[in-house]
């Protein structure tokens, strides 16, 4: 009996000492030589919920969707790095955050911080996300838009479909067509990159 009690005590101490270490992050997915950590998936969900003004969903389906978007994001980021595409500088990032605050909290940064904190986010997280979106647009504009060709026939067809006058709306129609086609090219490129790069789901739950 005494022996059993001693063993129990020992077990208690061991539990106490190991109980302090908690896994704070791990690799969920690897895409080529880039990784998506579990915290990154979590962050993505929070950011999306914040920007949509909704409650964050941590369901498996939502996590999978976020993971897939992150894979695409990582592939684009790697291409931007390899191709030396321009990234937004610190002043530009700060301006983006400021503009966001102007738009949503009338420039009240503390209020923005409180809103973000409610989602477990920081202004740095939001700034990073806004900068990523800006860089993506820049990448799209430099990499895919120049190759898009819009013919007169395309414009006429678009004007007819939208039932507007071509003369009046030419510039806007052209802009829209270019944007749609560039997006399609980007999607095709991402699909191709997914085939070329090894994507491993270390967190099996996130595998499609």
């Amino acid at each position, binding site marked *: 009996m005494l022996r059993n009690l001693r063993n129990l005590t020992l077990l*208690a101490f061991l*539990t*106490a000492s190991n109980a302090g270490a*908690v*896994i704070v*992050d791990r690799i969920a997915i690897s895409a080529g030589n880039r990784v998506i950590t579990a915290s990154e998936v979590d962050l993505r969900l929070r950011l999306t919920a914040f920007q949509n003004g909704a409650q964050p969903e941590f369901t498996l389906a939502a996590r999978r969707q976020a993971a897939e978007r992150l894979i695409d994001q990582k592939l684009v980021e790697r291409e931007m790095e390899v191709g030396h595409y321009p990234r937004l500088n610190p002043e530009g990032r700060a301006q983006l955050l400021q503009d966001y605050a102007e738009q949503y909290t009338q420039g009240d940064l503390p209020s923005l911080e409180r809103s973000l904190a409610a989602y477990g986010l920081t202004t740095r997280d939001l700034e990073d996300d806004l900068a990523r979106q800006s860089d993506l647009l820049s990448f799209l504009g430099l990499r895919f838009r120049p190759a898009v060709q819009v013919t007169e026939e395309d414009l006429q067809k678009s004007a007819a479909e939208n039932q507007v006058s071509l003369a009046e709306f030419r510039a806007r129609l052209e802009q829209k067509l270019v944007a749609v086609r560039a997006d399609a090219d980007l999607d095709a490129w991402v699909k191709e990159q997914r085939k070329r790069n090894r994507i491993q789901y270390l967190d099996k739950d996130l595998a499609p």
Partner: protein
Amino acid sequence: MRQRYATCAIAICLLSLALHAQDSPARFEGLPVVAIAFDPASQPLELADITALLPLQQNQPYQAAVIRASIERLYATGRYKDIQVDASAVPGGVAVRFLTKNSWFIGDIAVETNTSDPPGPGQMSSVARLDLGMPFDEDQLAAAEENIRKLLVSNGYFTPKISHRLDYDTAFQQVMITFIVEGGKRSHYQLPVITRGNPGETPVLSDNAIDKATKWHRFVMPGYRGVTQSRSRSGIDNIRLKYQNANRLRATVALESLNSQNPVPRITVNPGPVVEVKATGARLRRNTLKQQIPVFEEHTVDEDLLTEGSNNLRDYFQSRGYFEVEVDYEQQDVRNGRTEIDYQITLGRRHRLAHLEITGNRYFNTATIRERMYLIPASFEFRQGRYSEASRRRDEQTIAELYRSNGFRDVEVKSRTEDNFRGKESDFAVFFEIAEGTQYTVELLRIEGVKKLDISKTLNSLSSQTGQIFSEFNIASDREAIMQQYGEHGFANATFDWDTKIDAARHKAEVTFTIHEGEQEFVRDVVTTGLSTTRPGLVSRQLTLSAGDPLSPGAMAETQRRLYDLGIFAQVDMAVQNPDGDENRKYVLFNLEEARRYSITGGFGAEFARIGGSNAVTDLSDPGGAAGFSPRVSLDVTRLNFLGAGQSLSFRSRLSTLQKRAAVSYFVPRVFSLAKFDANLSILYDDTHDVRTFQAKREEASAQFVQHVSKPITVFYRFNYRNVGVSNLKIDPLLLPRLAQSVRVGIASFNLVQDRRDDPVDPHKGIYNTLDVGWANRYFGSQTSFVRVLARNATYHRIGEKIVLARETQFGVEPAYRIPSNSDPSDPIPLPERFYGGGGNTQRGVPENQAGPRDTLTGFPLGGSALFFNNTELRFPLYGANINGVIFEDAGNIYSSLGNLSFRYQQRDVKDFNYMVHAAGFGIRYRTPVGPLRFDLAYSLNPPKYNGFAGSYVQLVQCSVSVTNPCQAALQQISHFQFFFSIGQAF
């Protein structure tokens, strides 16, 4: 007491669980990081490297974003397969621990198999597609084994068993993969089952004919050969060729995959219609038609190929002077299993490109422009000149490109033609007019982004410097120069961009080069694998890279070349481990496959020339040699990598009716660790009758050092010590006491070789020089003292595209000194040491070794102390790609001494042999993988006359001492016609 214990334990558990519940990651945010640890403690990166790259630092606040970035950064190195991070609250802050799993990289791939070639182990390793140094995942093994299995099945091993063994090298994160293959017995072909695509029609080829065409039958013996991939492929190709020969160009022949379920070859044939291709309107050989129309080579008929055929025919006839030729084709529909393709050729008048003029060129002279053009006016080589409409356009482009690449961006090149040039109906002229424009120059060159590497020397020698010519060509060469510098210094990811601002009005350009250097990579260590018998020291001495050096592909390639040069490795694979990993120190891998240590080579051959005639002592007929045939066999055994030191021990032997030879030699590459020196020691026994005057037995020991001064220049330093005895001498018996003695010769020599030929076996351009200087002296143990100098100069010049003018001059002199009293006063050099010449490689006007002085009684050659030969050959294509012709002129002779060297044409009398023999002739060369087979027929214009003796040697001895019955001379002459048959060019 017990109760207190229990309560205490439970309380501790509950407290710890409560604490645990409170230790969610967010709690650590902002706390100072007190400790950073790694589990396992031994990491694939060194601690200093990890510390340098990790964003997380001790005593900095804990941030989830920084943890995330640290995981990303570590993973990007490529050294990790999985990374988790745990953290725990400790006094003063938070302790962070990285829990890692290493990744692995592919090392050596080996195959242990009981199958016979094909496929060989190397082939199986190759199809596994596991590349040295690349990341390894066990998932790859299934695909690799499947590829090996498919290879084995296609080579007749229908039910192979394949397994693998993995050996992990934790020091270098490598996994050695060994595939174990049990193939069983190779299957054999069987009588093929033929399925016909047109079953109702009469077969073009019978089943038996198809079976024979496959060549799958054993040679002579009954039954079929073993299945191999190449035999299956060639079998199908042979069947297709049979159909093609029967004008069935659209025939399809397919073999179903052979495997264990389908061991009988099933061949489906569909002959298609008879396709007859003919040309009307011009005479065209069938072979030429086949060469010009690609449907024959491609074994199919389609519009693109037919159009290409039209274009080819047009170019063909235009190059023969039919500049206005028109070629069209008409393809009929298939009728009664037949279709005709008719190329209708309208030749037009035959012209001669009589004149080609270029005007307007100031920057380049006409010769510089002409050598880049296809158009050639009429000449000896091109009787009608060379012209076609397409080529004229191409030449315009070529000239324009030449100017643009030298800064003339605005150049315009036009051409026009003029018929009936100078009133001659068939003559044709082309005029090129060049408007050069103004040359653009670089006004300013900016170079941005050079921060880490000092490339000032390269930058100072760029072609696009301020004031220099501006052209894209120069920018491309500057790019190459800069990128090469970066590549050699470990900047594998450096990129180069350029931009220009052009001022067309002032013809100036501002050029900006932007360089993104990327990170510099270094060698972490050099790892060699695959050695079993070779000493590691031998390999490490060849390495040109060591830890800490910039990662240079050039140094890697140089190491690979040096390892191959050792001659002991069958394969040297090199790679950078983890090439895509984001780390700046990488392992450089060399995986070596040792060659088989023993090689045995056997050969047989024959010599057919004027080498025959009687060898018997009793018969002195044919001093000039009669037609003879000498078969020969050889056997060589070599032991490579002797004692694992890269040295070789070899035994070489040759046996023929004229020669018995055995030699043992020991080769030491890079002797005394000197990269450019090799050494060779050998002993030799030789019994030869290649000079018909005597039989020579030679026992020799030699030592040789070879210095590889540079790529074209090699120097040999040699010492030979030999004992030479002669017997069966066919000379004046009174000379026997002097010349019949065996003699010891110790000779030190120096041989310089400069070889700048494009191809040593069959050269088309370049030069080849040798200089051999030897000194025989009593201090070297020689019984006879002389100096030998032999120099050779050969040059090769192209004439046009296919003709080669080759010439060679040889000069040699061998003065003796300190002449012993018992030597031949006319030539004190011992018989076997004299110069001998004549034959296929020196003077084709006389048989082998028959040139020069002769015994005045018997007429047999005695050799001499001086030689001079000059050979000139015109080599040209004769028929097809493999048969060439040669016309030649040989002049020269062996002379009794330097003072008797003469260019005189006439032989004064039967005792005078110091004159120049001339011969001209014709030869045929048939190209083979080992060199050209050679047949030469020469006509000697002034072959030597000499006195022979019609009798036996015994009779010669008797009459030479007789006063009453002196020896009767029989006047003889070397035959005017000589023939030679051997392998290799004459020179």
